């Protein structure tokens, strides 16, 4: 990390302009993410931003970094491959609720358990937007969408509680209307060693207008204002179950007592896998043959 020039959010703008609808919550998330990496001084060439597919998964394309726009649901699988192969990189996975909690749900569970040191920012709009408005894993019971025209009869998944019980070591919820707060949560996630989830209310103004800014603005309540202790997992779970007139944002849970995969994996003691010389030493080759005799 040789960069000496102070970085600003502008340094992380790619040459491509977002193609999101006017008023989309994802603008606020992009903005917060760029501010967070700038404030932490992560040089763009040491930053990998990895997404799946969906409106929000276009985000890496707007970031000046090593960006990957992978398959639907696979951002965490790819991002963890990047991180495990080169843990000197800052790796951020981004995507939507359908991508991460639906089709990619298995990876979400296991990445939390595996405690891979990466930051996962989910733009949760409780709808499938890019496919023009179907029910999502976080849609409320009764949600009327194109695939549930008479109202959904399924209950939503709780990403905050899921992440905590599956072993994530940093779990937060942001709101894209609060860029300052969200920037801090993303910074916290990046600085945290281990798997961090930042679930973000990022309204879809086109296909889910009922859950847009007026809905959230009147309900979001910051956990830190309620004196929540993020090391208390019972309280964290309790707060995550509240969803009504009051909805909590902020850091639900963080512990630093669980080592991340990068720290636990003995093979990484000699540094990142990336950049190592290829091929076997004579000693290694002899050992292989000896074991075959």
């Amino acid at each position, binding site marked *: 990390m040789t960069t000496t020039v102070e970085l600003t959010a502008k340094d992380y703008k790619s040459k491509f302009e977002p193609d999101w609808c006017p008023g989309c919550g994802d603008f606020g998330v992009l903005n917060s993410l760029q501010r967070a990496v700038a404030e932490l001084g992560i040089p763009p060439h040491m930053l990998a931003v990895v997404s799946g597919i969906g409106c929000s998964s276009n985000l890496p394309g707007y970031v000046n970094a*090593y960006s990957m726009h992978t398959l639907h649901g696979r951002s965490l699988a790819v991002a963890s491959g990047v991180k495990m192969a080169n843990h000197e990189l800052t790796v951020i996975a981004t995507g939507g609720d359908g991508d991460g909690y639906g089709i990619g749900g298995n990876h979400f569970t296991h990445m939390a358990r595996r405690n891979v040191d990466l930051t996962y920012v989910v733009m949760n709009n409780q709808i499938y937007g890019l496919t023009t408005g179907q029910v999502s894993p976080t849609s409320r019971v009764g949600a009327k969408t194109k695939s549930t025209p008479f109202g959904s009869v399924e209950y939503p998944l709780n990403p905050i509680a899921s992440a905590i019980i599956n072993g994530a070591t940093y779990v937060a919820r942001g709101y894209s209307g609060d860029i300052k707060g969200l920037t801090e949560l993303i910074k916290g996630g990046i600085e945290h060693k281990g798997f961090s989830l930042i679930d973000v209310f990022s309204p879809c103004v086109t296909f889910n207008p009922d859950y847009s800014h007026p809905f959230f603005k009147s309900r979001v309540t910051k956990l830190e204002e309620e004196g929540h202790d993020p090391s208390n997992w019972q309280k964290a779970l309790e707060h995550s179950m509240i969803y009504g007139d009051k909805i909590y944002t902020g850091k639900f849970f963080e512990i630093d007592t669980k080592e991340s995969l990068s720290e636990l994996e003995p093979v990484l003691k000699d540094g990142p896998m*990336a950049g190592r010389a*290829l091929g076997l030493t004579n000693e290694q080759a002899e050992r292989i043959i000896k074991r075959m005799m």
Partner: protein
Amino acid sequence: MSSTQFDFALSIGGEAGQGIATPGDIVARLFARRGLHLSTYNAYQSIVRGGHIFLTIRVTDREVGNHGDDIDLLLALNQDTMDRHLNLLKAGAAVLYNSDAITPGQAANGVQLCGLPVNELTGSQRAGLTQNTVAVGAMMHLLGFDFSLLQESLTQQFSRKGDEVVTQNVTVARAGYDYAVKNFKPFPFTLPEGGKPLAMWSGNEALAIGGAAAGLKFYAAYPMSPSTGVLHWYAANARNLGIMVRQVEDEIGVANMVIGAAHTGVRSMCATSGGGFALMTEAIGAAAMMEIPVVYIDVMRGGPSTGLPTKTEQADLWQALGASQGDFERFIVTPTDALDAFNTMPEIFNLTDRYQCPAMVLTDLYISEGRFSVDPDTIDLHPKIDRGALITTSSGNGAPYNRYKITDSGISPRAVPGVEGHMHIVATDEHDEDSMLLSDEFTNPIKRRAMLEKRARKIAHVLDDIAAPALEGPAGADVTLVGWGSTKPVIAEAAAALNAAGVKTNQLAIKWIVPFHADEIDQILRSAKKVIIVENNYSGQFARYLRSETGFKAAAHIRKYDGEPFMPHHIVEGVQAIVKDGIERYVPTQEIIV
């Protein structure tokens, strides 16, 4: 047993949990240390305890790639084995068994029945397990081994468990040996000295070691028979070799995780079997679209669906050919034996690096779980490594970098994360040379065509980099046998037997499916007199592929799809029936039933 060459097969049968592997391994190593060649095949079932297992170890004084036709010595560890397989033994063969527990049935004339009174010989309460050691002792006499060799081997094997265990085993083995000396007639041969000691590996180990030699740094897998041996080898050796190994939640995760790792510039691969491979296919197309080199191994087993987890088949060819949507660049290669599996790995890694696309290695249970001897001097653990156009340091000149730059060769130099000034986007959506998505807002038929053609151009001349297949055996043969992948050794042996029997036969063994030397193959086959395609599947998957690529229609087919591999005589008899009766399709009957 052949009269001119040493060729001997030993089979051990019993149930899972009876410890068949241990005597098998002890004896196999004794042969390999003597410099004799080995090919072993273990017919087994998907059960942890019980059922039936039948391990065949063939020993020869020349290189051998299959388990042969005959059984010379049967070690029956239970009654079931005796009942199932005694009828396979011909005059001159012998069967060893615990006469306290097993009754031989009607054997053919000239088969030596070698009953061992295990309880009397050992006085042991644990006759069930010691019977194996007693039998190995007796086997030493039958084969003409000096007992000291077994003593040495047992000492080595059990030394970690302490002197008492060593002494116990040696004593029991000695009892078996002494009893055999008094009561059994040894085989009428002198074990040849093969020269320098040979090593042993399974095909799975050969694949894994080949990957390690090629500089593999990241291996991910979800356990699936018969590919799990690759995972086990890496797991055991990862720390010493500096290879990251991950067991992932599912094959979709595996297939995508290796892409992420490969993106950073490390060589990366995974192995699975047909069902897991089906889950991986979307990622294979993604690797091609993002132009990230990754190696995917499919160790085929009997299908369809969960199929036959512990049986062999070559029926995933069209799955590999059809893996993932769209037109994209990839390699599909089918190693022809264990050593070839090893050698394929550095070659395929170099190709995927140079052409920045995924590769599929198609092999099968017969190679992957079979154990074969190998001359250690033929294993090149320091192969040539060619990373292609890989950018790992910044040029520092500030010139703009386009990841998918349109070039004459179609190859765009690939920068890895961490290199200053080369930030870019890789995308599974169609994209322009500067990574702009041509999918959502900026669709553009002209650019789409240019990008698709750029990628396609990469492999336009790839056939020049790969050896074309050639006929092996006599020119102008009456019969040309065509096989792909693991059947090469067994077809070669069948061809030799046919030549000896007066049917002039040669072989065209196919290793590369994509790219395919269609012109060369077509030319060879059109000048052949009678082409018979041999494959381990029902529908003739390779025959169909050959026809689709060349228009060539073979005269006849030999197909086996009962889960068990070909034995040489299956092919010999098939060719004879085809030549004599003019039939177009021959299906051999499997006589060893497991």
